[in-house]
């Protein structure tokens, strides 16, 4: 039977990465002084599963590496070794290393082994060193790739048929472990010609017989082309609870060997003890004569050793096939159950409506309306439940921060405590995947620029340990994520000075604190005195804001000098649903994301200025905003070309404001986002489509795409703005 193991790879990768996350957070929580055995167990189990799976699915590099880690963990778990902080660091590095290996395997790339080998030798040094060298249970033959034992068994099979004498006397309890001697004999019969003679000498009288106890012993003659180890393998599971003698005889002889009949009856008597005393019996059993010479471990390792070699080649081949990324989601059974319940209700409503329609007359109208109302409620609930399937707790994203903070605070010599709040707050899986990087950036920023060095903190009258809090909660249809630090706060004077220097604001501009803080999200803005490794890698806060805006979200900062800063990210709970504003342009209806709309105004020509180069700008209080005519960039016919008869919707996208000219504002509604690319392709200025109540398709506008289409460039806009300043 040949089974394509590669079909399980994706699941293995996913669960391994999850396991690594578990390991990592457990390691970070580990108090080496006061070590909690359940935490160690958790770490061990994760490593153990990865090792088992990687071995099974032919990823021997991962299996070998994990084996070393597992060995050390096992010693710690067994209490043979104390866990030291250095071990924790080493384990953490290994987690990174395995994660990298798994990701390479998943992507079908070659696995980079230099880090792994380096770590492996460090682990080996720990294992070999000091007090427990002998206890390390890593004999080479048990490692998954050891080739030695394979040749052993192979070499033996050339000899031709041999005759073996087997004496087998199991302990009385053999049946209670589910072991059935007849099955073993069946196996022997498969090897060759077996003659089994039962010895009932120990059978007690019928009155005292215990039906659950085995009183029998056997003499077997086996003529087969097998080695002793192969016969031992048949008895492998009972070898410690039985008397077993296997001897090769020169010629076929079925006569009973009198010597073999001299079995000690003592163990039979012992076996009559009650099942609760099993432990006692088995502890004593090794005392009984067991004439088995080679270590059982060798027999065990034989099948294990053959396997990776056989599978390595197909695994490499399969990796390429697997490159297409299949993302899956794990859903709690409660969510599925609630879906099933809803569908049940829907079916009831449907049959009720069906019943009504059978002989409908006007007197049943109220009932029909009631039914329809129920149907719409069912549908709404069903939609919510379906959406909930894609929702995961934000702890999946939060979980990467303890490690980040641990590592960074070490590099920077800062003392930082990380507090996580609202970890169970749920959001859409896709949103979660995309919010990770912007959050990392913000946390790095808080660590680097927010939290002061311990001595500075003490000078400022604060505790030497800084506090970073990640908080998440739901608010309306949004999830709010906050990154709060108790550091020094934004230096508003410096920000303003820099902004003036860079021409982002005029020298005479009066800005509120809020506006000053917001400047850090402007492109090309970085206040770090020196570019550090931690933040300021050329990726500015403007990118953070843009990434968040791409998710239809927003980010803002609030800061108090000396007390710290709070970054607040607001995101829609899901990318599948959007709060939309329907707008009309000519005969077309488009949808604007509600979150991007700042205001909509009816204008008069006094507010509109024509700038050389053809771009019109709208004077909006102290600002100048470029005007984009939707009909122009989309090549459609509007109701009116007259700006005064149109409506200007001021929207923000890509860090700039523009005024979009449309005919009218229609309804606001939640729309389900459909892909345009699935059957067509990407369209500039359009982020997707949706289906309106009347069944027609409406396109969802993408503000930054529109800006690009209109050819409004930011540097131009800046010029416009400065020009405007002069004019004003």
């Amino acid at each position: 039977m040949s089974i394509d193991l590669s079909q399980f790879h994706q699941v293995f990768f996913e669960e391994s990465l999850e396991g690594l996350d578990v390991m990592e957070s457990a390691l970070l929580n580990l108090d080496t002084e006061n070590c909690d055995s359940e935490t160690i167990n958790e770490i061990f189990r994760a490593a153990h599963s990865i090792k088992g799976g990687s071995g099974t699915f032919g990823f021997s590099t991962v299996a070998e590496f994990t084996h070393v880690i597992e060995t050390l963990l096992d010693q710690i778990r067994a209490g043979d070794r104390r866990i030291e902080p250095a071990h924790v660091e080493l384990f953490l590095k290994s987690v990174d290393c395995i994660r990298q290996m798994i990701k390479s395997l998943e992507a079908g790339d070659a696995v980079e082994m230099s880090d792994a080998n380096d770590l492996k030798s460090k682990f080996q040094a720990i294992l070999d060193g000091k007090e427990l060298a002998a206890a390390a249970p890593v004999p080479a033959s048990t490692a998954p790739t050891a080739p030695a034992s394979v040749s052993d068994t192979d070499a033996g099979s050339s000899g031709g048929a041999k005759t073996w004498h087997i004496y087998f006397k199991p302990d009385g309890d053999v049946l209670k472990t589910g072991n059935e001697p007849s099955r073993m004999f069946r196996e022997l019969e498969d090897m060759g010609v077996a003659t089994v003679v039962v010895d009932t000498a120990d059978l007690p009288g019928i009155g005292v017989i215990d039906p659950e106890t085995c009183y029998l012993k056997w003499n077997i003659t086996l003529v087969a082309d097998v080695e002793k180890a192969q016969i031992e393998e048949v008895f492998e599971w009972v070898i410690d609870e039985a008397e077993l003698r296997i001897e090769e005889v020169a010629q076929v002889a079925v006569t009973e060997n009198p010597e073999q009949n001299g079995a000690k009856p003592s163990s039979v008597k012992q076996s009559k003890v009650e099942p609760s005393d099993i432990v006692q019996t088995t502890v004593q059993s090794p005392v009984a004569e067991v004439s088995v010479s080679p270590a059982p471990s060798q027999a065990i390792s034989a099948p294990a050793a053959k396997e990776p070699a056989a599978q390595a080649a197909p695994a490499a081949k399969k990796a390429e096939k697997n490159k297409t990324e299949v993302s899956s989601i794990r859903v709690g059974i409660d969510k599925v159950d609630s879906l099933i319940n809803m569908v049940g209700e829907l079916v009831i409503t449907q049959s009720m409506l069906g019943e009504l329609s059978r002989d409908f007359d006007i007197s049943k109208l109220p009932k029909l309306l009631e039914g329809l109302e129920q149907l719409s409620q069912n549908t709404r609930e069903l939609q919510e439940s379906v959406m909930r399937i894609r929702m995961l707790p934000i702890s999946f994203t939060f979980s990467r921060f303890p490690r980040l903070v641990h590592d960074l605070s070490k590099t920077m010599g800062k003392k930082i405590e990380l507090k996580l709040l609202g970890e169970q707050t749920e959001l859409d899986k896709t949103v979660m995947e995309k919010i990770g990087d912007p959050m990392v950036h913000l946390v790095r920023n808080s660590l680097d620029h927010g939290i002061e060095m311990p001595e500075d903190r003490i000078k400022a009258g604060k505790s030497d340990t800084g506090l970073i809090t990640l908080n998440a909660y739901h608010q309306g249809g949004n999830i709010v994520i906050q990154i709060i630090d108790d550091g020094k706060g934004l230096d508003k004077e410096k920000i303003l000075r820099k902004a003036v220097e860079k021409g982002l604001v005029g020298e005479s501009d009066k800005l509120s604190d809020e506006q000053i803080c917001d400047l850090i999200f402007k492109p090309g803005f970085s206040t770090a005195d020196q570019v550090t490794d931690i933040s300021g890698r050329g990726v500015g806060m403007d990118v953070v804001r843009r990434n968040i805006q791409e998710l239809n979200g927003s980010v803002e900062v609030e800061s108090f000098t000396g007390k710290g800063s709070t970054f607040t990210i607001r995101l829609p709970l899901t990318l599948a649903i959007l709060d939309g504003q329907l707008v009309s342009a000519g005969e077309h209806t488009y949808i604007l994301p509600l979150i991007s709309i700042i205001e909509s105004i009816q204008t008069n020509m006094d507010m509109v200025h024509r700038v050389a180069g053809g771009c019109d700008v709208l004077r909006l209080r102290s600002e100048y905003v470029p005007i984009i005519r939707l009909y122009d960039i989309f090549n459609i016919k509007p109701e009116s070309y007259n700006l005064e008869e149109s409506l200007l919707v001021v929207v923000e996208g890509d860090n700039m404001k523009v005024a979009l000219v449309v005919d009218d504002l229609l309804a606001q509604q939640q729309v389900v986002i459909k892909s345009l690319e699935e059957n067509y392709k990407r369209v500039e200025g359009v982020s997707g489509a949706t289906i309106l109540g009347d069944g027609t398709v409406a396109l969802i506008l993408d503000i930054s795409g529109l800006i690009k289409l209109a050819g409004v460039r930011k540097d131009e806009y800046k010029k416009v703005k400065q020009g405007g300043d002069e004019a004003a």
Partner: protein
Amino acid sequence: MTKILAVDDSASMRQMVSFTLKGAGYEVVEAADGKLALEQAKKQQFDLVLSDVNMPVMDGITLVKELRALSNYKFTPILMLTTESAGDKKMEGKQAGATGWLVKPFNPDQLLATIKKVL
């Protein structure tokens, strides 16, 4: 049809075992830990239990003990799927009443060959 209970906290291992056994014509029920396995075992009679050793909530050793305490699982073959290279886990399993073991990593053929030993 022969019913097998496959217990492992690793979904990939569970899927592999289950797929292999189903392909060989067995009926398979999966459980992610010892506790869930025990619940399944009480609901229906299995002809064979394959269980991982290291699992959260209830480990494989405890599962074997619990199963053996049930009158209808006294003689049912229970195989441990173990990666322990050291023998002590195997001993522990045996003492708890396990029939035998299969050492990970194993491939589908080895799995089928092993379960044929007890069915």
